[in-house]
C-alpha cells in the first residue's frame, strides 16, 4: 500500500478538518514531517529518493502555507466542500462594505500623500481589527453553521482587507 500523495492537507498533518486550528500542533507536525523528508535528508541518497524528497517537501510546504494563513485555510476548506469562493464571476459586495472600502482607500491616500506615519498606523490598526472580526465570523460560518455560501462572502471581504493591508505595508516603505 502506498500513501496517497494527493491526500488532503489536514490529513497530512493529522489535524481535524476545521477552520479552528491548533497552530502549535500544525507547526510541530510540519517540522516533524520536514525533518523526515526534506531534501537535505537525502543529499547522499540515490537520484530517485532525491527527486521524491523534493516533491514531498514541496507538497508539505504548500500544505503548511495553506493551513497557516487563515484566508487560505478558509478558501481551502470551502474548496473541499465544493465551493470556489474566488470564482471570478462572483464579485458581489454589500453596499455598506463598499462604502467602507472607499473611506479606507481615501484614508490611505491621505496618509501616503502627507507621509504621515501616525495616520497610517491608525488605519492599519482599524483594518487589522476588522480583519480579525471577519476571521472570527469565518470560524462560526464554517465550523458551526456550515454556511458555505455566506462564508464565501466573508472570505471575499477578507481578501479585500488583506490586499489593502499589503498596500499599507508598501506605503510604510515609501516613507523611507
Amino acid at each position: 500500500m502506498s500513501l496517497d500523495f494527493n491526500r488532503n492537507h489536514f490529513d497530512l498533518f493529522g489535524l481535524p478538518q476545521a477552520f479552528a486550528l491548533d497552530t502549535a500542533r500544525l507547526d510541530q507536525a510540519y517540522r516533524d514531517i520536514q525533518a523526515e523528508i526534506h531534501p537535505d535528508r537525502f543529499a547522499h541518497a540515490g537520484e530517485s529518493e532525491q527527486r521524491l524528497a523534493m516533491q514531498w517537501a514541496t507538497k508539505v510546504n504548500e500544505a503548511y502555507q495553506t493551513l497557516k494563513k487563515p484566508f487560505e485555510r478558509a478558501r481551502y476548506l470551502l474548496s473541499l466542500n465544493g465551493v470556489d469562493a474566488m470564482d471570478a464571476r462572483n464579485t458581489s459586495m454589500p453596499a455598506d462594505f463598499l462604502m467602507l472600502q472607499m473611506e479606507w482607500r481615501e484614508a490611505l491616500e491621505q496618509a501616503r500623500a502627507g507621509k504621515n506615519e501616525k495616520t497610517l498606523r491608525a488605519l492599519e490598526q482599524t483594518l487589522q481589527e476588522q480583519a480579525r472580526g471577519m476571521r472570527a465570523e469565518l470560524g462560526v460560518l464554517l465550523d458551526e453553521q456550515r454556511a458555505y455560501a455566506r462564508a464565501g462572502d466573508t472570505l471575499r471581504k477578507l481578501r479585500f482587507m488583506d490586499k489593502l493591508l499589503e498596500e499599507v505595508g508598501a506605503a510604510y516603505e515609501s516613507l523611507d
Partner: protein
Amino acid sequence: MALLQISEPGLSTAPHQHRLAVGIDLGTTNSLVATVRNGVAVVLNDAHGHGLLPSVVRFHKDGTTTVGIAAQAQAADDPHNTIISAKRFMGRGIKDIPDAATMPYQFVDAPGMVQIKTVAGVKSPVEVSAEILKTLKARAEASLGGDLVGAVITVPAYFDDAQRQATKDAAKVAGINVLRLLNEPTAAAIAYGLDNASEGIYAVYDLGGGTFDISILKLTKGVFEVLATNGDSALGGDDFDRRIYCWILEKAGLHAIDDHDKTLLMARAREAKETLSEHAQAKITAVLTSGEVVDQSLSEDGFNEMTASLVNKTLAPCRKALRDAGLDASEVKGVVMVGGSTRVPRIQAAVGEFFGQTPLTNLDPDKVVALGAAIQANVLAGNKSGDDWLLLDVVPLSLGLETMGGLTEKIIPRNATIPTARAQEFTTYKDGQTAMSIHVVQGERELVSDCRSLARFELRGIPPMVAGAARIRVTFQVDADGLLSVTAREMGTGVESHIAVKPSYGLTDDEVATMLRDSYAHAQDDMTARNLAEARVDGQRLLEATEAALAENGEALLSPAERAVVEKQIADLRTVLQGGDLAAVKRATEALNHGTVEFAARRMDISVRKALTGHRLDELEI
C-alpha cells in the same frame, strides 16, 4: 577474474567511513574552504598557513592562471588580466554593472552574462570563479588526503536565479559535486546556532566586499527557519573603497589616470578604510605611473561622512525584512555580524542602534560562513553527527512571468519556503493563437522592465481556438538549492504541447562542457580520466546509499523477487566500478537508479508516516 562479493543479509557492506565533504565560501573578496574534522569545523589553510584566499585570478598568455595572494599582489602590474571581485559579474549583463567604467577590464557584452577579454582569451565570470573553486578543491584534497564526495557552496541570500545558476555552473567547471547551494547568512546562523544552542529570533547582517544580506531566522528545537530575507547584491565594502578612491582623485586633482593607477589607488583606498577600523587617522601614499606622488591623510570622521549614505542603504532592507517577517526590531533576540565590512565601527554602531542591542561579533566574521557550510556539508554527505537539525530556507525575490502590457504576474512570492512549486493558468489573447511566448522574470516591481529577465520559453502547438479558450498551465518549481525550473502545457485538449527553452541568462550545457574541456586542456589532468573518476564517485555513492537503504528496510518493503532484482543491479554496478569502462559505469548506475524508483517511493511513504505517528517503523502496518 575476481569473484563477486555477496554481503550478509541485512548488513551494509559499506564500511563506516568518513566521507570527505567541505564547505566553500566563494566570496567577492575572499574565499575559504572548511571541513569538519573530529567533530569540529575548521578552516583549511594553504601550504603557507593562509586560510583566506583572495578571490583574484590572473590569466597568463600560455593559458595558465595565478590565483589568490600572488595574483592580488600583481594586480596593479597587470590590471587587464587580473580579475578582482568576479562575483559581482556572475549572472549579470553589462548594463547591470553601473561602475564598469571605473574598472580596468575590457568587458564584452555577451547575451545573458558579461564576459572579459584577457590575454588568455575571452573569459566568463563563471570561468574566473571556477579557477578559485579549483584552487580550493585542490587545497582540500591535499589537506584531507582523498577525493571529495562533494561540497556545500555558499551564495548571498539575495542572489537571484541567474546568479545562483552561474555559481552552480562554476562548480561544475571546477569538477565539484555540489551537495547544496546554501545562503551565506543561513550558514553563519548554523555556525552560531550550534555553538550557542540558542532559541528565538535572530537577525544575520552580512556585509562583505560586494554584497549585502539581511536574514531573519527563527530557531526552534534544532530547526532553522528563515522567515524573511532581503539585501542588495551590489553593495559592499568595494563601494566604501570607491568613495575613498573618488575622494583621493578629487583631493589630488587627478583626472585621466591609467589602469595601473586605478588599481593601485583602489587598493590604497581599501587599506585606508581597514586602518580606520582601528585608528582615527589613515595615511594614503602612492607613486603614480607619471612619477607623481599622492600623499594624503583621511580621518575616521571624514570617512564616516563620505560613506554615511552607504551605511543607511543597508538599513532599508533590514526594515523590509522585519516587516515581511511580521516582526518588530525589539523581538529580535540577537544580531549576528558577518563579513569583513562589519568591522567598520560606524556600521556596528548603526546596526546596534537599529536593533536596539549590541551586535554579536564573537565568531570571526571572515570565517563564520565557511564554518557553517562545512557543518552542513558534513551532514549532507551522510556523516553521522550528534545533533540533528533542519534548515528551512526561502526564495529571496518573487518569481513570475510577463503578461499583456509588460506587467509582471507573480507566481511564487518572495520568502516562500523552498522547495516550492506553484502553477497558474493563462490563456490566449487572439483567436486562433497557436503559440505563446513565456517570459520568466524575478523581482518585486510591477513592470517587467524593472525586473530581472531570467528566461524565455515558447509554447507551440496550441490547438487553434477562440481567444481566451485555451488553458495553458505554467508550473514554477524551485528546488532546495533555490534554482527555478519552468514548464508549460496546454490543458484543455489533453495534448501535451512542446516547449522550446531558450535561457536568456547563464550558460547552456554545451557551453559548460566546452569550458570544462578548455580548463583541462592546460592542466596535466586528462579529461577522460576525470570523467571516469567522477562517474565512479557517482556510482559508488549510489551503491552505498542503496545498500544502506536495503539494510534499513529492504526486508520490510521489498518482496524477495523485487529484492533480488535490486541486488543483481548492485552486483552489476560493483563489478563495473572495478573496471575502467566509463559507459558501462554510467549504464549500471542509471540501471540501479531506475530500478530503485519504487523502493524509494515506499521508503518515502514510511518516512512521512513515521513523522505523523511518532511511532517506530516496525510498529506500522505496511
